[in-house]
């Protein structure tokens, strides 16, 4: 073997490595895609917003997203701005929006914001304050409580298209059969009715106490806390471990574990399951959000169309519930803020809100739009009544998400609810544990 050989093969090796390195860099260049927002950044100096594309992060599977998706071509026709919807399941939305905001790629221009996130997003600077982009008149068009729901420390961080709170849905046909003439107005009545309406031979439950370890059931738990006269935070003070909140838990365990008027499996249900059971005609009463009204009245997907009515939630010590808003906020890393603002304003314009209320039978955030709906002769009387009840419920409501750490609190309470409903601990013990943990969360 000659001495030259190894040295020569060396060079070859180097060459091959260099070529592969080059290939790698070429390949990776092809592999990456520019985020949608950036790609359109190139047009931004052409003046005006025409031809731009804005991306909205929206809740997947929701009727409201469908509504705006269907209506958005109209917006594009008016403004020349294209709209893209990025649908995200609610369970992942918070994490995804936070990481998106923190990453600041500008891939998303508008966040659909659920109430509990606004304080956190605003505090972290993920959302653009929009006070300066609104005239005083425009602000006055909204119900004051609606704008308050999207404000943090005096600044407005988005425009709400929906401010809502759960209401009671009940099956009028089953009530009649059981000899009940009106919706339950108090907790005691509710518990008694649920017992009476439970019909195991026909597979019908009186009600459903959602108990899944997940965020949504906690929104119902907050209602129980408030109705019992309790709360989670008093200013900055954590007041989870209170006799009132204990009563709330006892009310829930009473229905679920003692009366058994909620199906045993409900401990693993969240909203989607409760919704399904109601539409399948398997439950007599549930507390659910206004969105279900239209869906449950659609015979194509619901077996109970025309067989139910709505009422205010039964009152415990107090007649109240937690109010939650959904709105559109502008990402502070958006590269199309002007175009995004046009959409946000359009989405809550009088004309769009009227359609919104009409289509969904929902509470509406602008008093003028409510009046217009009331004057609308094409709407059914019972639908108008339902809107009135939903709006009344909002009037009784309270905002519970005043702290930026609410999502972490919500997650901790989800654990509490699930632990209690699956009998892993007693309400007394769990409230003590939650008090300690939430104090740590708030103290951070």
């Amino acid at each position, binding site marked *: 073997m000659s001495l030259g050989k190894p040295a020569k093969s060396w060079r070859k090796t180097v060459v091959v490595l260099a070529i592969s390195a080059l290939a790698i860099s070429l390949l990776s260049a092809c592999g990456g895609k520019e985020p949608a927002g950036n790609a359109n950044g190139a047009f931004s100096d052409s003046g005006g917003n025409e031809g731009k594309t804005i991306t909205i992060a929206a809740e997947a599977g929701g009727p409201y997203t469908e509504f705006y998706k269907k209506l958005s071509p109209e917006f594009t026709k008016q403004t020349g701005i294209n709209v893209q919807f990025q649908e995200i399941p609610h369970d992942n939305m918070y994490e995804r929006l936070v990481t998106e905001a923190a990453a600041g790629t500008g891939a998303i221009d508008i966040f659909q914001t659920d109430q509990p996130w606004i304080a956190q997003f605003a505090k972290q600077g993920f959302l653009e304050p929009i006070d300066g982009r609104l005239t005083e008149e425009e602000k006055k068009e909204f119900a004051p409580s609606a704008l308050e729901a999207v404000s943090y420390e005096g600044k407005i961080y988005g425009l709400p298209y929906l401010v809502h709170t759960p209401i009671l849905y009940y099956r009028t046909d089953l009530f009649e059969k059981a000899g009940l003439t009106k919706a339950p107005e108090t907790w005691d009545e509710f518990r008694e009715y649920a017992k009476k309406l439970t019909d195991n031979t026909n597979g019908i439950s009186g009600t459903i106490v959602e*108990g*899944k*370890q997940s965020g949504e059931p906690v929104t119902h738990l907050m209602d129980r806390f408030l109705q019992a006269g309790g709360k989670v935070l008093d200013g900055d003070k954590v007041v989870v471990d209170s006799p009132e909140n204990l009563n709330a838990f006892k009310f829930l365990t009473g229905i679920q574990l003692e009366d058994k008027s909620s199906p045993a499996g409900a401990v693993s249900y969240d909203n989607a399951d409760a919704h399904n059971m109601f539409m399948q005609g398997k439950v007599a009463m549930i507390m659910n959000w206004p969105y279900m009204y239209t869906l449950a009245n659609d015979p194509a997907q619901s077996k109970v169309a025309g067989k139910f009515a709505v009422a205010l939630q039964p009152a415990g010590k107090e007649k109240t519930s937690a109010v939650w808003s959904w709105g559109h906020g502008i990402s502070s890393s958006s590269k199309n803020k002007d175009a995004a603002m046009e959409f946000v304003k359009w989405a809550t314009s009088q004309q769009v809100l009227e359609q919104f209320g009409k289509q969904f039978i929902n509470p509406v955030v602008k008093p003028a739009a409510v009046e217009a709906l009331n004057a609308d002769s094409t709407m059914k009387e019972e639908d108008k009544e339902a809107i009135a009840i939903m709006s009344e419920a909002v009037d009784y409501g309270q905002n519970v998400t005043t702290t930026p750490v609410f999502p972490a609190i919500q997650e901790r309470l989800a654990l509490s609810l699930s632990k209690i409903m699956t009998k892993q601990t007693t309400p007394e013990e769990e409230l003590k544990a939650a008090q300690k943990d939430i104090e740590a969360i708030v103290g951070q």
Partner: protein
Amino acid sequence: MSVSAKKRNGKHDRSRRTAGILLTLPALLVMAATVLYPILSSFKLSIYESQGMMSTGAFVGLDNYWKVLQSSQFQSSLRNTFGFVSVTIIVELIIGFAVALVLNRSLPGTKFFRIIFTLPLMIAPVVSGLQWRWLFADQYGVVNALLELVGIDGPLWLGTVWGARTAVLIANVWLATPFVILILLAAMSSLSEDLYEAARLDGANAFQTFRTITLPLLKPAILMILVVRLSDAFRVFDIVYILTQSGPGGSTEVLSTYIYKNTFTGLQFGQGSAASFLVMLLIMIVSFVLFRLLRPREDRA
């Protein structure tokens, strides 16, 4: 060997060394950039206070580690993970052995069965988790409907502590047992037929042959299964995230989901990183102990 030959060999060695370095260098650079650097930066996060996602706060030393160790949620996820890892590996080994022994007999049709048993290995854990979530659903789930057919009142799979844990276990066993089967089968087929013949002549029964011949000779394969499956089971995330979301009442919370939540919902980057390092340490210890216990004797010399 002549002097010149030695010299040549020395050069030869050196060039072989350089060749080795050059061949492995690109991969090592990639690993350094994509593993070493992130892990070091993660370590840095773990010794600083975290202030949301945008910035790091003051140096706090091991404070984050203490906080994690003291948190009841970390402790319970640690217990859950240990329970899950040990039970799932035992179940996988039992089923894996039963099936592999049968397949190894090369009865007619075993080839076809082997293909079927390989399928779950290819399936995304997310898809499997969703499938099982649907099968285990309350009311309209098919598992309980089938149980009812044979007169069993099925449990609330996702609504009770042990139901949910069993559900996670079943979904995971479904995904991972094929790997165990394939490895065992491969190792079994390489065992010499003569040994068995000799045992048969000695009058050993099937169980005795299994215990005295098959099992000891399969030690390396079992060790590999243990190490691979151990690290896979420790990192279980997708199935829990999809199937139970750690519920009910945190009874299926495992280390990965705990770290994920702490970091991406709670925005506690420091504690999340600290917990990650604790998990890493743990896996290293467990693997080391396993190697010690199971390493074939002749290697120890």
